[in-house]
């Protein structure tokens, strides 16, 4: 289950990079941000640094191997899972 604050945070992050297709949050989180050209390779580095900083989490190689990592909604799920297991 994705906490409600992760998805809008990510959509807002990507909207600072460019137009995210869709009119609702549910539509926007379907976006494959690579295919949409919202970020390039160096942009991924910024994304990871910003997300890890904002949610106090660390991604691992295993996460980068997941198909989910390429869409806003999938990324939000991964972030939420990491937040859920984060030590208090």
């Amino acid at each position: 289950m994705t906490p409600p604050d992760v998805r809008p945070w990510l959509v807002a992050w990507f909207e600072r990079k460019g137009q995210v297709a869709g009119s609702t949050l549910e539509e926007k989180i379907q976006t494959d941000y690579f295919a949409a050209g919202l970020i390039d390779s160096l942009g991924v580095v910024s994304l990871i640094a910003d997300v890890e900083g904002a949610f106090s989490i660390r991604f691992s190689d295993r996460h980068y191997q997941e198909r989910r990592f390429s869409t806003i909604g999938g990324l939000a799920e991964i972030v939420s899972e990491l937040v859920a297991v984060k030590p208090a």
Partner: protein
Amino acid sequence: MTLKAAPDLLFLLGPSGEWIASNPMTRTHVAASASVLEGIRRTADGHGPDFVEALKGFDEVWVEDRTFFGCRDCTVADATGLELSPRPEARVTGAEAVATALQERFILIDDEAAYRKRFALKTRLLDPEHLGNFHQQMGFELLMRQHKDPEQWWVAQKFEEGLKTVRDNAYRKVQEEFLKRDVPKWALAGKKVLDVGCGAGYYSHLFASFGAEVLGLDQNPEHVSTARNAFRAEGLRFEVFDLSDLESLKRLGGGPFDLIYLSDVLLFYFIPYQPPSTLKGGSHTGRPPVSAASFLGTLKTLLAKGGRVRVLEPHGSFSLCLRYGDPSRPLAVLNEYRRKWFGITPNLQTAAQAFREAGFAVVDIREPVYEGPVRDREDAFLAEYPIWWLFELVPMA
């Protein structure tokens, strides 16, 4: 899900007497208890017992990941990615966890067709379906794990701060030592030299120190700026130049040149082409959209009468090959030669064909190796196997 052994495995005895299961195709490795190896053997053909079932009754069931990206500190380091030292923090125990770890490291697979499809270029930075070539894996390592700008890292892994010396790795032990021995024989005094893809200008400066008038070209403005700041000498200059723009290259001023030198440049003209969108961020996944032969053919028009081209490139066999064996008896494992998916260099026939199509004859081939005292495993390998080769070319009559 039925697991079976990947079809490409090697089993080694590690330096501490531990078993190592190694997949040289994926460059992934694990140390494992003998029971795990027995489990792999029993499931080798996919028709035996389930892997987890096969491990029932064994007391000691563990694997320890011994994989790392071998070139994480230097592009010309050992690309095998095998960590020989124990890594107890990477140890997992229990049949289920071991099965997962072995799958993640391609020692066990569940679908051979899907496994074989992995040996292809990545279509983008995060492409879990494909392993990608060396440059793509290098880009992944730098961007995703080290969070570094590949362009800045490239200079830093080759040169000490301020570009005064080459780092004490294969760049110094083999490439620089070879050039220091050989360049004095090139009789450069008073000659015009074009250093194509000069990078940070280190070797342009070396040529100028022997009295040559040198023009260094590089398409990366940061490298050219670095070169201009680091190296000033009479007759030495650097320019930003798009090396895929052959029409502009034909009209390059400052020639004709007695020597055209390329170091670690030509390989980019052989790498399978990827759309420019995948090249962003310096991840170097593809070649410029011109062929090596047409690029070299254009350079030929810039040569003075009697001029020649020297091409020092990563070796078509031993660059990025896997290194196994004892330090006293280094063992090179070639897991690809003609149809490369990880390596980024042409083999001898492909290189020779490009030279011939460009109108050049090869008058010399050199295979520099490390000639200093052998102190460790890397030295031993570099002393035995050339990881660069140099072609000397002259225009055919």
